[in-house]
């Protein structure tokens, strides 16, 4: 009985979880709503987005992302220059200044999960570990959703989207 209730709760949490905003914390780094898009079948890569807030007084740096979901994960920046889309690895990771926010979507950053273990479907989730220079390792869950900004859409002021 207890087990069945626990299962029922887990199922409800899984169903509700990904569509709601979720947050993780490591030291003075807050990780806001990590999310990913559903992938087409046999897609060799998947993307991940999140928002990093540094509530501390020292700069920190996201240096690595690890996940059992993919063979490798890299942090990339996409740019469109003169109508040409380019993607480059973010050299040396992502610096989060004290009091600063790095919104991956607004800054056209993404985590690229290379060689994913499976196809991602809407409303699923998968775990990953973010490794920060100072805040250390933090376990997070990436929620799979179709659209960007399904949570906290009011929170994009102060970020120049025009790049």
């Amino acid at each position, binding site marked *: 009985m207890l087990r069945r209730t626990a299962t029922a709760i887990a199922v409800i949490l899984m169903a509700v979880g990904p569509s709601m905003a979720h947050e993780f914390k490591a030291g003075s780094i807050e990780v806001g709503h990590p999310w990913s898009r559903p992938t*087409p079948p046999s897609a060799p890569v998947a993307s991940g987005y999140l928002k990093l807030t540094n509530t501390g007084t020292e700069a920190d740096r996201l240096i690595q992302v690890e996940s059992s979901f993919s063979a490798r994960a890299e942090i990339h920046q996409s740019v469109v220059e003169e109508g040409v889309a380019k993607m480059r690895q973010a050299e040396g990771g992502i610096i989060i200044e004290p009091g600063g926010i790095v919104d991956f979507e607004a800054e056209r950053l*993404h985590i690229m999960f290379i060689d994913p273990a499976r196809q991602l479907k809407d409303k699923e989730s998968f775990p990953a570990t973010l490794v920060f220079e100072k805040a250390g390792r933090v376990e997070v869950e990436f929620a799979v959703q179709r659209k960007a900004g399904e949570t906290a859409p009011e929170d994009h002021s102060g970020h120049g989207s025009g790049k």
Partner: protein
Amino acid sequence: MNKIKIFQIATWTAVAVAAGILIGVKGMLPNGELQEHASSTGTARVGGPFELTSHTGEKFDNARLAGKPYLVFFGFTHCPDICPTTLYELTDLMDVLGPDADKLTPLFITVDPERDTQTVLSEYMTAFDERIVALRGELADIDKAVKAFSAYYNKVPTEGGGYTMDHTAGVILMDAKGGFFGTLDMHEPRETVLAKLRRLIASNA
């Protein structure tokens, strides 16, 4: 030198600087070159002969597109961000357009045929509107298609021995006569994009 003279010199200097900036900015606009062709000549250079193979294994050339407006997007499946987003967005747009969407042919041309085999593409495309046709070919055929649409791609090595592809980001709109009609930027508001597609469809009414 009197004050009027200084004012005149300053004014002309400002005009020259402003003109220089305008020319510079115009040249830097995304797809600025494509748009200029359309407006200055009426008949665009964009859109020449090409012959590729669809994700279902059929021969697919420009002659097959005659009489119906079409959309061209260059990309590759090892692209986690812009390419699937554009294809999902096109899928949504086709859905919103309803029966009118049948009056368009959207094409997704891979610039990475080495990794995007027909098997990969045929599975990949099942996630999107079934009217979107993915096309591939030998590198020389891809080059010809890229050139036909005045587009661009470049293979860029990455750390660890892999590579990524730089490619034209926008969706190119072609009218039923194979003439350049405009481009779509998926960062434009949905309404703007839909209005352009409806105009493209209406152009063939």
